């Protein structure tokens, strides 16, 4: 039987649509011309120029501060939530709990952003990096919870019983056995949360205050008022970091699967 070529063609077209723009962006970041239309010569000029941009570095620092704290907070909260969901599976309250945790994954971001802004404003909280961080936790939490929950589903809990049987109280079994064994899942969820946090624009845009510009917001304003080649270089760096994180997360969850 002759195989149809259609699936292959469709696949390549989809890949092209998805990745060609990104490739153009990456390529242009090495183009010394100011305008993307023509190729002058290959250079790292924009990357070097980027070094001198104080605003961008400040934005990067903000982004990292938000991402790291939101990730750490959601790792703790998400793991605890996953435990509760796993332990009391089937109870009505936990079904509601699951729904609440799942919601941010499907809810439109603009809605999240808007409602969070209204929430902070009505409480008279000054918009700042802290509010961005709190906003990020709301969706990062879901990713960590889902990843850890998946790991808990095929976890042999007689191992925890064994630890208690050998004299470990619940605190010791948590730190010596449970957390180390779940670490790949928690870290994978955390890395995923981290990547989502560093490139979040919509929600951050709503809850950012004066002086709390994050990198995506900075890029947005640079497109409006600044120079595109610099953005290309910056985006390429951001892309690389995100890519490495996703790869790491994938590797960790695979490794965790094998260990279980």
């Amino acid at each position: 039987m002759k195989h149809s070529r259609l699936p292959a063609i469709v696949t390549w077209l989809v890949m092209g649509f998805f990745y060609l723009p990104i490739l153009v962006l990456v390529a242009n970041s090495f183009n010394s011309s100011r305008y993307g239309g023509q190729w002058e010569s290959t250079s790292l000029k924009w990357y070097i120029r980027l070094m001198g941009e104080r605003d961008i570095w400040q934005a990067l620092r903000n982004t990292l501060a938000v991402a790291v704290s939101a990730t750490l907070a959601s790792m703790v909260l998400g793991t605890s939530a996953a435990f509760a969901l796993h332990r009391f599976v089937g109870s009505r309250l936990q079904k509601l709990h699951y729904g609440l945790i799942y919601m941010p994954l499907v809810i439109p971001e603009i809605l999240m952003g808007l409602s969070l802004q209204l929430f902070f404003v009505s409480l008279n909280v000054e918009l700042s990096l802290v509010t961005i961080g709190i906003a990020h936790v709301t969706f990062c939490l879901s990713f960590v919870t889902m990843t850890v929950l998946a790991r808990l589903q095929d976890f042999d809990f007689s191992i925890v019983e064994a630890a208690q049987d050998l004299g470990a109280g619940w605190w010791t079994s948590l730190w010596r056995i449970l957390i180390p064994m779940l670490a790949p899942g928690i870290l994978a969820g955390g890395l995923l949360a981290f990547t989502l946090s560093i490139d979040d624009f919509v929600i951050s845009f709503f809850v950012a205050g004066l002086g709390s510009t994050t990198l995506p917001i900075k890029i947005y304003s640079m497109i409006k008022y600044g120079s595109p080649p610099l953005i290309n270089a910056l985006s390429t760096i951001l892309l690389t970091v995100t890519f490495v994180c996703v790869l790491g997360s994938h590797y960790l969850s695979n490794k965790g699967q094998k260990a279980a």
Partner: protein
Amino acid sequence: MSEILEFVDVSKHYGAIKAVDHVSLSVKQGEFFSLLGPSGCGKTTLLRILAGFEQPDTGRVILGGQDVTDLPPYERKVNTIFQSYALFPHLSLWENIAFGLKVAKRPKKEIKEEVDKMLALIQMEDQAWKKPDQISGGQKQRVAIARALINKPRVLLLDEPLAALDLKLRQRMLIELDLFHDEVGITFLYVTHDQGEAMSLSDRIAVMSHGSIEQLGTPAEIYEAPRTSFVAAFIGDTNFFDGIVAGPLQKHSPFGGTRPVPVDKEYSRLIIGDLPDLECYNDKQIKEGERIFLSVRPEKLRISREPPKTAPHLNVIEGTVEDVIYLGAQTKYWVKVGAYRISVIQQHSRFLLDEIPIKWQEHVWLSWHADDGFMLEKYDEQDENLILTPPEEVGETMEDVPIAVAASEEEYRGDSAAEVPVS
């Protein structure tokens, strides 16, 4: 020997299901004690209650004279070998074994000495730094034992520890377990559904069914004198005859005269369907006219072509051979007698080729002494599946003890035939 462990009237319910139903038993210091029963009989729940993973609804658990009912698992001086071994996958074998001592914050030097001693005991010194997923099932089992024994528990709990191993390995681990027990002298509480394992390892066995203990005794007591038909069918192979007690046996008068014949209160006469009347030793109080089951183990039956010499208290029945299975050390016959299919096991103590073996369709005589049968009450409908277990399945676990329960379907159909009114 003193009592190390006591269950006092322990019950545990899950909703409407009685997992453990008012169980009391005590285990002696140094004993190898088994809880034996089919799945769902409550043996594992009882073990988990002792380990502290389950709270009993009623009753107390006394360990070494101390009431431990309300203590958490980590404060009880017992250790468990889990069915899945439950080794810590992220720790090396050395760290796995050291875990208990580390948690107890013992000095480093002592931990090292003890762990090395344990590794020597299980003969795995050279593999100390491997991870659990790098070793075989039998080795995991040994590490699990070492990890538990290093804490010097008052009682070592073993939850079906051999169930996950293949047959050959199971037989080897059986011997190793026995050696470990002799070597360390710790009390073992062993949970299993495999009667072969329980019989070969245990000092005493508690046979459990539906949350309570059916019988407690040494393997020989349980095999030779089962108190209920459940025990008779679950432990080993047996034939059941469904009959009615016709009353005490009439003693043979030494003078053969017409004088009133004294009654032999030790033996009863039984009416079994269309078979000749049988005799059985009265091992318990039985009323005349009561419906009973006569159980006779296959190896207690003698099979012969010629009618056996008559002797006092010898039961003799005639039948036709329906099936012959030659098993090397022994031969198994299925003999049709009336409505019954009776299983007979004959050991070959002499050179067989000189004899003319009994063949299919031959007319034979079966005989057994009245002392070798025992009378039991009728078994539950629920236990029927158990009795019908095909012989091959269980027969693998032990060679010397005839295992597997057998009673043919005809016996159940035979029920109606046996209900002859006693005159």
